[in-house]
């Protein structure tokens, strides 16, 4: 299947972005954004790569990038969006909500309602498979790097065998490719809207995030290092905390990974 290429010009002239870099291949867009941060580029800076060889997740996790996927990092100053220092974890929530908003219309009528949502803390899942992930790095001076990977025009058939059944792409779901330029511009609009909402109405953003979380009401296991905790998810707090009812009472989790059953 022919994969449409990103049209650079409409992204370069995007009214929100002050700087833009497009690379054919990078180790990691976050690493490139970190390197660029040292040269104080006008912000926001968007780094996009057609391919990534060392994309990162948490811990030892790696982000698989198949041909046609979207990988990007946004270097920005959260203060310019009204985001206070103690709201930075919310950027992770805002990114997840923005991706759901961007892919939602493309999946209308394609996947049953309720199948698109968030796998705590912030992965975008469709029918129990991962469509997108985000990771945020804070710099000492308060600037943030938001790294995003969205499985758009790639196909899970090209993924390593261990990921094939856990990943899903827009192309796989809709059986067609999507204009990467239009998708990126739509995603940027949703990102900006969600980040601004985090700055000005964090409860509303938190409520949107919580409503999308697929774990509510379910029994889940959270792994933190060598510790695991199992409980029923009572709810997700507006600051993103996973609220688990455990045999020892209700506990709030701000970190850890859900163990795949």
């Amino acid at each position, binding site marked *: 299947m022919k994969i449409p290429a990103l049209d650079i010009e409409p992204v370069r002239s995007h009214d929100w972005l002050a700087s833009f870099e497009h690379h054919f291949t990078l180790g990691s867009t976050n690493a490139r954004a970190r390197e660029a941060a040292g040269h104080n580029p006008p912000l926001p800076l968007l780094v996009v790569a057609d391919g990534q060889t060392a994309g990162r997740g948490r811990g030892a996790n790696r982000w698989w990038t198949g041909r046609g996927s979207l990988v990007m990092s946004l270097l920005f100053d959260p203060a310019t969006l009204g985001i206070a220092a103690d709201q930075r974890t919310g950027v992770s929530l805002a990114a997840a909500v923005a991706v759901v908003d961007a892919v939602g219309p493309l999946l209308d009528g394609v996947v049953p309602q309720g199948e698109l949502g968030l796998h705590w803390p912030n992965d975008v899942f469709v029918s129990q498979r991962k469509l997108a992930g985000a990771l945020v*790095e804070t710099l000492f001076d308060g600037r943030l790097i938001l790294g995003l990977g969205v499985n758009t025009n790639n196909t899970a058939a090209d993924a390593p065998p261990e990921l094939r059944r856990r990943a899903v792409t827009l192309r796989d779901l809709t059986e067609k490719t999507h204009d990467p330029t239009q998708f990126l511009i739509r995603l940027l609009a949703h990102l900006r809207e969600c980040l601004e909402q985090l700055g000005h109405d964090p409860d509303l953003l938190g409520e949107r995030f919580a409503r999308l979380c697929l774990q509510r009401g379910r029994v889940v296991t959270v792994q933190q290092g060598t510790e695991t905790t199992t409980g029923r998810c009572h709810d997700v707090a507006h600051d993103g905390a996973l609220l688990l009812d455990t045999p020892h009472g209700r506990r709030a989790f701000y970190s850890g990974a859900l163990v795949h059953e």
Partner: protein
Amino acid sequence: MNATPPAGDIFDVRRIRRLVELMNEYDLRELDLKQAEMRIRIRRGQDEVPVVETRPAVSTTAPAAAPGAAAAEAANNNLAIVKSPMVGTFYAASEPGKPPFVKAGDRVLPDTTVCLIEAMKVFNPIPAEVTGTIAAVLVKNEQPVEFNQPLFKVDTSA
């Protein structure tokens, strides 16, 4: 203004007496409690280290603090404690397989990154905030940490 503490108030004298009894019973040197906007910290003796940190079982306050807000608190004249400014997971190195940011015996400056704390997949570099030598690493890689939990001891005399 009503001077009587409300029921369950952590500043209730009987409650404080009971806390001190518990500290003696369990040989705790410091107790640090928070309730809504109120906080009480009880210490006994001059020794460093043990800190008992409690959080409400369910909190809706944001866990994150600005990098640089890590509390490097003097425990005695020559020893500072670098504490976690947030709830999250402690990462000793930038990536698995990479050497840790610091280990015992390493010299640090106030802006030296000593670890990362991750919450909600947001990674925050934690600075030493003091000049000295790492005397001890108090937590393990990928261990969950609480707000204000001691992470490192730093010998500031070295």
